[in-house]
């Protein structure tokens, strides 16, 4: 029987889940939404972050979220290196983004196989003090395993929102997203700005990887499960809007858990994507799209 408490908990669970979805999507919002780079390999970078968190947790017992925050500068440098190669091979030589898509598709497999060789095929989990305990108040259950990634995710997207809106470099990235050609006419090195933005996108993948392994066990090919979901959230949010991404992630999360509670989890993907189509029909540019 569906009760008010059940619905309330479903909404809360959806918001917690949406927070996690926002973290895994924010990198796509930057790369795909702002820079027009179809980084289909983004989820596998997230899984890579998860495995680094796993390794450090297993060897030294360090908290996975702390590990990925520390590792994120390395991911930033990795993102910069990948962008340089991508730019030289595809963008710089005037080849279409379709070839770039093939490049990232290939990268997805290369990273997957590398993870397979390094970590094997088993599902990996981490141990932390907040996996298992539950906090509750006023008939609401809050599993810490979902709360911690949610808090981390909100901090991440808030930080990025402030960075993009209130710093010189952030505004430059937004300007590149808006009109790269106009910026280049003002003698701005747009490639350097795009490179920086792509590095940030990959750095967010590391942090999302820490959240992922707290929520569920990971194996090297898990990233594929997230490809459709992250691009859907990015499009629903308005392609390049950070607040839009967060709202879209919350919508998807809440729709999933509400559907799960009211009609059963088997309907959740259908209802979620129906909501996506409906929103796009009413507002083709997405929730916060311009």
């Amino acid at each position: 029987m569906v009760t008010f408490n059940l619905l309330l908990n479903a909404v809360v669970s959806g918001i917690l889940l949406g927070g996690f979805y926002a973290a895994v999507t924010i990198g796509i919002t930057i790369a795909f939404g702002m820079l027009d780079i179809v980084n289909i390999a983004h989820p596998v970078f997230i899984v890579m972050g998860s495995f680094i968190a796993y390794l450090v947790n297993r060897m030294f017992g360090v908290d996975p979220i702390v590990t990925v925050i520390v590792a994120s500068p390395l991911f930033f440098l990795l993102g910069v290196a990948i962008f340089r190669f991508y730019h030289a091979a595809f963008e710089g030589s005037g080849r279409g983004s379709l070839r770039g898509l093939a490049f990232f598709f290939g990268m997805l497999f290369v990273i997957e196989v590398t993870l397979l060789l390094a970590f094997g095929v088993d599902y990996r989990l981490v141990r932390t003090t907040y996996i298992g305990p539950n906090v509750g108040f006023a008939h609401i259950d809050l599993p810490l395993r979902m709360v911690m990634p949610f808090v981390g995710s909100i901090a991440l997207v808030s930080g990025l929102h402030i960075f993009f809106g209130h710093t010189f470099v952030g505004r430059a990235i937004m300007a590149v997203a808006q009109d790269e050609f106009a910026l280049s006419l003002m003698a701005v090195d747009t490639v350097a700005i795009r490179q920086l933005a792509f590095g940030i996108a990959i750095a967010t993948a590391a942090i999302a990887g820490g959240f992922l392994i707290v929520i569920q066990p990971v194996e090297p090919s898990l990233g594929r499960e997230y490809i459709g979901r992250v691009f859907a959230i990015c499009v629903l949010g308005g392609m390049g809007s950070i607040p839009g991404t967060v709202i879209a992630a919350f919508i998807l999360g809440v729709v999933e858990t509400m559907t799960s509670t009211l009609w059963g989890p088997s309907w959740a993907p259908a209802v979620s994507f129906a909501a996506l189509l409906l929103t796009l029909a009413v507002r083709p540019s997405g929730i916060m799209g311009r």
Partner: protein
Amino acid sequence: MSKHGIRQNHGKRALSPELSFDDNPIKGTRLTRRLFGRGFMTISALAACRALRASSALAAEPIKIGFGMAQSGPLGGNGKAALLAIEMWRDNINARGGLLGRPVQLIYYDDQTNPALIPGIYSKLFDIDKVDLVLGGYGTAVQAAALPIVMQRKQLLIGTGAVAVNDRYNYDKYFQMLPNGSTARTSTSEGFFQAAMTMEPKPKTVAIVGALTEFSHNVILGARENAEKFGLKIVYDSGYPPNQVEFGSIIRSIQAADPEVVFVASYPPDSAGVIRAAYEQKLQTRMFGGAMIGLQYAELKQQLGPMMNDVLSYEFYVPAPTTNFPGIKEFLAAYQERAKTAGADLLGFYLPPYAYAGMEILEKAVTATKGLEADAIGRYIHETTFDTVVGKVSFAANGDWAKPRLLYVQYRGIVGNDLDQFKEVGKQVIVEPQEFASGTLHYPFAASSH
């Protein structure tokens, strides 16, 4: 030196000194009967040598056994462990002189747990690699994809593990090694429901939930039939998509339905998600578990640790006085040693003994029929009861085990995350089937877990 001279010089160097043109013993001599006899004997000896070389080459021609096996993807962990067991059999048989006196060569490809890759893999095995025998990989979906191709070639297929794949084909040369029994759809969950009915008072309600995949769907269909058979009312019945992340809302909905028994048919990441959510939500029910793939893996056992206490799930093997099959301890000791370097499951309780037993059966059938003829091997396997490392095995008409032997095991007294505790007798208590029971069901679920 003239051009002609160079040619002559080359010609000399090309021949052995004994047979150089200058030293030719036949040069200028008449062909006598003795010379003819010597020549004939030499030619005969050379021919005999060539024939001997050819026959020994034929004897050394390996028997090629081909298969697709998940080495990546959701079931890659299982596939890797099964592959190690099959490789152990290959090493053993080659050390014993081979199969039919020929070495065994394994040709395998990673099917990535993806049934879409199966037609390509098996076509290559048959047409390019020219394998003599084929095996089936692990997983219902991949074996379901492989079986029609094998049927088309009229070949034999011994599958590592699948549920109800041959039900709609009834192919007489298909066998699969998991002990689900010939009515796999219902027998996979039967032990669970039998265990439930040992509770006093007997339960009246059940919740059924599982992943929307081939395996789980089959199991759920069987679970519904069993619920009806045992007179249990289904108060919650739902599937979830394979990429489900959040299980809290599912557990909460189950709790709202207030079932006495909760049956879950899940894949590895879901099993971890469901157990964690049940633990976090403090699920109040009398019995919780089901056909949960993943709980058999060393990694998940170790990581979930005490959260598994009181969960009732199926296993294929656990250490118990009732499962002391001849050769199993030696096999597992050898497997566990090799698994450390192979990166395979460290315990090897789940698939490896059954994958190895499948190869033992194939070996015995090929040896007994003295050939690789699929019809003869198939007939022999159907007619024979085999002694293997997993005990006595015989097959039903549909290629499943004639008698199901899925062990429903309750995890008890798991403390911390030490893997070695799972090697101890008593931490995984067999409650069904009664023939192998090493203890009785502990209930209610919530009391001891939280």
